[in-house]
C-alpha cells in the first residue's frame, strides 16, 4: 500500500507495519527496543544523507518517518536497512508494510498520536511511546528542526484530542472496567479495602490497577501462598492463604476474582455471613474467572453487586461504541493541526520568509512616517520616504542574501531561517493575520 504526496506537502515518507497490515509474528520480528532503535536511527541518518528520521515502535506497530527530497528513494533505503537489522526479506515481506508520502505521511503520525490507528481505539500509552521514539532519535542525533516540530505538534494534537473529545473516555480493558465499577459504587477508593483472589496474570494486572487508583488496603489471596507473597510485595498488599478467604471477606468492600478454579470459591452462605459482619455495607464482586469463582446467586443478595466477565464485556463494547462516535471530532482536530504544521513548514522556504520580512519592515516604516506626518511639509515627507526606503533596502540586502543561501545549507540553513522568523516575530505576525482573517470571515458569514 502506497500513497503519494500532495503538492503542498513536505518531502516526508513513512514506512510502517501495524495490527491491520501484518500478523503478530511479523510485528514481533520488526519491533525495536530502545538501544536497537538508537542504532537503527544512527545508521538511517547516515544512509539518508543526514536527513531527519525517527521511529515509533510498540508491540503493535513499527513506523519509520524520514524527511527526504525524494521520498520513494528514501523508502527503498529504509526497507533495505530494516532487512539488515531484522530477520525479514525486503521484497517478500513488502506486503506487510504500508508506505505514505507527503501530507499522508504527516497525517499518519497525527492519527497514531490521537490513538485512531491503535488496536484499542483512543488508548493513551501511544503518546509516551512516540515520546520514547523521539528521545531515541535525539540520542541518535537523527532528528532536526523539522522532525522536532512534527513530533511536538503530533503529541500536542494527541493531547488535544483527548482533552477536547471523549476518544479516551471509559474502560476498554477488563482490569480497568473492574476499577471503574468500584469507583461507581464507592467513589474515592482511598479508604476502601479490596481483595484480589488469584495471583496469575489477570490478578496481577487488577492488583496493580487498584493500587494505582489509590485503594486503601489490598489483600492478595492465592492457593499458592508464595505467589500471593510475591504479588503482595509488588503492590504493597498483604498475602493471605485461601483458607482465610471467609475472614478476608468480612474486612473488604471490593472482591476481584481471577482464578482458574473449576468450581466457585465464594458461595451465597459465605457472602451472607460476610454481609452480616460488615453491617450490610455495599459489597462489590467482580468475577473475571472462567469458570466463575463466585456463585451466580450471590447477585440476589441486597446491596451486593456481582459482575462477571460477560457484564464487563458489555461495558467495554459500549465504551468502544462511544469512542467510535468521537472519531469525526478527532479527525477535525488532526486536520487543523496538520494544516498548522504545513503552514509552518512552508514558512521555512527562503522566498516567503524574505517576502514576509520585507513586508513586516515596510509596514513598520510606513507606520512611523504616518505617525510624524503632521509635523512634516509635503516636500519633507517625500524626502523622509525616500531616505527610509533606501535605508531599509540596504539593511535588508545582507539578510536577503543569507536567507537565499540558507536554502542550500540543509539543517543549519533551516535553523538560520527559523532564527530569522523568531527574531522578527514573523510567526506571531502570521498568527495575528490569520486570526484577523478568521474574524473577518466569521463576520462576513454571520
Amino acid at each position, binding site marked *: 500500500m502506497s500513497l503519494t504526496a500532495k503538492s503542498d506537502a513536505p518531502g516526508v515518507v513513512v514506512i510502517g507495519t501495524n495490527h491491520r497490515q501484518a500478523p503478530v509474528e511479523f510485528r514481533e520480528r520488526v519491533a525495536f527496543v530502545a538501544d536497537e532503535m538508537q542504532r537503527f536511527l544512527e545508521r538511517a541518518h547516515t544512509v539518508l544523507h543526514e536527513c531527519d528520521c525517527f521511529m515509533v515502535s510498540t508491540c503493535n506497530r513499527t513506523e519509520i518517518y524520514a524527511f527526504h527530497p525524494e521520498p520513494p528513494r528514501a523508502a527503498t533505503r529504509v526497507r533495505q536497512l530494516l532487512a539488515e537489522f531484522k530477520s525479514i526479506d525486503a521484497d517478500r515481506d513488502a506486503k506487510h508494510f504500508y508506505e505514505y508520502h507527503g501530507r499522508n505521511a504527516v497525517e499518519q503520525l497525527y492519527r497514531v498520536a490521537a490513538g485512531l490507528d491503535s488496536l484499542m481505539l483512543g488508548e493513551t500509552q501511544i503518546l509516551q511511546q512516540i515520546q520514547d521514539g523521539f528521545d531515541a532519535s535525539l540520542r541518535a542525533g537523527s532528528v532536526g528542526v523539522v522532525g522536532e516540530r512534527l513530533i511536538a505538534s503530533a503529541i500536542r494534537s494527541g493531547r488535544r484530542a483527548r482533552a477536547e473529545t471523549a476518544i479516551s473516555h471509559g474502560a476498554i480493558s477488563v482490569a480497568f472496567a473492574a476499577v471503574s465499577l468500584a469507583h*461507581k459504587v*464507592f*467513589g474515592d477508593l482511598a479508604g476502601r479495602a479490596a481483595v484480589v483472589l488469584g495471583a496469575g496474570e489477570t490478578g496481577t494486572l487488577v492488583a496493580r490497577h487498584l493500587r494505582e487508583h489509590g485503594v486503601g488496603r489490598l489483600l492478595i489471596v492465592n492457593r499458592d501462598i508464595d505467589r500471593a507473597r510475591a504479588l503482595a510485595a509488588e503492590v504493597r498488599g498483604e498475602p493471605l492463604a485461601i483458607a482465610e478467604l471467609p475472614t478476608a471477606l468480612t474486612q473488604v468492600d471490593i472482591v476481584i476474582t481471577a482464578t482458574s478454579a473449576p468450581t466457585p470459591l465464594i458461595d451465597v452462605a459465605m457472602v451472607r455471613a460476610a454481609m452480616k459482619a460488615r453491617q450490610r*455495607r*455495599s459489597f462489590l464482586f467482580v468475577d473475571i474467572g472462567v469458570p466463575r469463582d463466585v456463585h451466580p446467586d450471590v447477585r440476589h443478595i441486597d*446491596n451486593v*453487586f456481582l459482575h462477571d466477565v460477560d457484564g464487563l464485556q*458489555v461495558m467495554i463494547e*459500549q465504551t468502544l461504541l462511544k469512542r467510535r462516535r468521537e472519531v469525526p471530532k478527532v479527525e477535525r482536530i488532526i486536520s487543523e493541526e496538520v494544516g498548522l504544521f504545513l503552514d509552518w513548514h512552508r514558512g521555512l522556504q527562503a522566498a516567503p520568509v524574505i517576502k514576509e520580512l520585507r513586508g513586516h519592515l515596510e509596514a513598520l516604516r510606513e507606520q512611523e512616517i504616518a505617525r510624524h506626518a503632521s509635523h512634516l511639509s509635503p516636500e519633507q515627507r517625500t524626502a523622509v520616504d525616500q531616505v527610509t526606503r533606501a535605508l531599509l533596502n540596504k539593511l535588508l540586502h545582507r539578510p536577503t542574501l543569507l536567507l537565499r543561501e540558507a536554502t542550500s545549507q540543509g539543517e543549519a540553513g533551516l535553523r538560520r531561517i527559523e532564527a530569522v522568523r523568531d527574531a522578527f516575530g514573523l510567526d506571531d505576525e502570521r498568527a495575528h493575520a490569520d486570526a484577523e482573517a478568521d474574524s473577518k470571515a466569521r463576520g462576513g458569514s454571520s
Partner: protein
Amino acid sequence: MFWDIRLLATLLPILYAVTSLAYALVFFRNDDLARRVAPRALLVTLALHVVDMTLLAVHLQRVPIATSFESLSALALALGIVYVVQERRSGTPYTGIIFVPLVFLCQTFASAFMNPNVEVKPVLQSPLFGVHIAAALLGYSAFAVSAIFGLLYVLLYHNLKAHRFGIVYERLPSLEVLSAMNLRAAAFGLGCLSVAIGVGALWSLQVYPQFWRDPKVWLSVLAWFIYAICLLVRYVAGWRGPRIAYFTIAGFLLVVFSMLAANRLFHSFHDFRM
C-alpha cells in the same frame, strides 16, 4: 410596581424552562456549552426570583409566604438554592435534570395562580412567624432534595445490579455520594422541621392557643417522626442501601399528599387569607 411583579411572575417560568432544557442537554448530550451555560442560567434565574419575591413583599407590605401559591413560589426558590449549594459541593451538574424541572413546575403553578392582591390576617407581623415559615420551607425543600437523591440512588442501584452501563451509569455520581446526599438532606430537613415546629408552637401559644387541633400541625409532627425513624434505623439499626432511599421517597410522598389532602378536607388556621 404591580406590573413589574406580573412581568417577573410571567418571565420566571420561562427562564426556569430554558434552564431545565440546558440541564437536559447537559445530561443527555454532555454538551460543553450547556455545561457552562446551565449553572449560570440557574443563578441568574434564582437572582430574578429573589427580586420578584422582594418586589412582592414591598407591594404586599409583608413576607409573601402566607398563601399556598406564595409558599409554592418560596418553595421553588428554596429548592433552587439548595440544589445550587449541592451542585457546588458535589461538583456534578448531572442531577440538575431532576431538580430544575421540579423548580420550574412549582414556579409555573405559583405564577399561574398567585393573586398579588390577596389580603391576609394581621397576625403575620411577628418575627417568630418569619422564622417558623422559613424553617418549614427549608425543611420541606430538604426533604424534596433527599427524596430526589433517594430516587437517583435507586436508579443507579438497579442499573448496577442489572449490568446496565448506559447514561444513568455514566452521568450519576457514585452510589456512596448519592447515599450521603440522601441522608444529609434528610438530616438537615429534620433539623429545620424541628425548628419550624418549636418556633411555630411558641408563636401559636400567643395567637392560636388551640393550635394542636390543626391537622397540619399533626401532619408536620408525623413528617418529623417519619424522618426521625428513618435516621434512627440508618444509624442505630444499621439499615443500608435502597431501603433508606425508599424510606425517604415514601416519607416525602406521604408528607406532600397528606398536606394536599388536609388543605382540601379540613379547616386549618394555616390558611391566612382574610
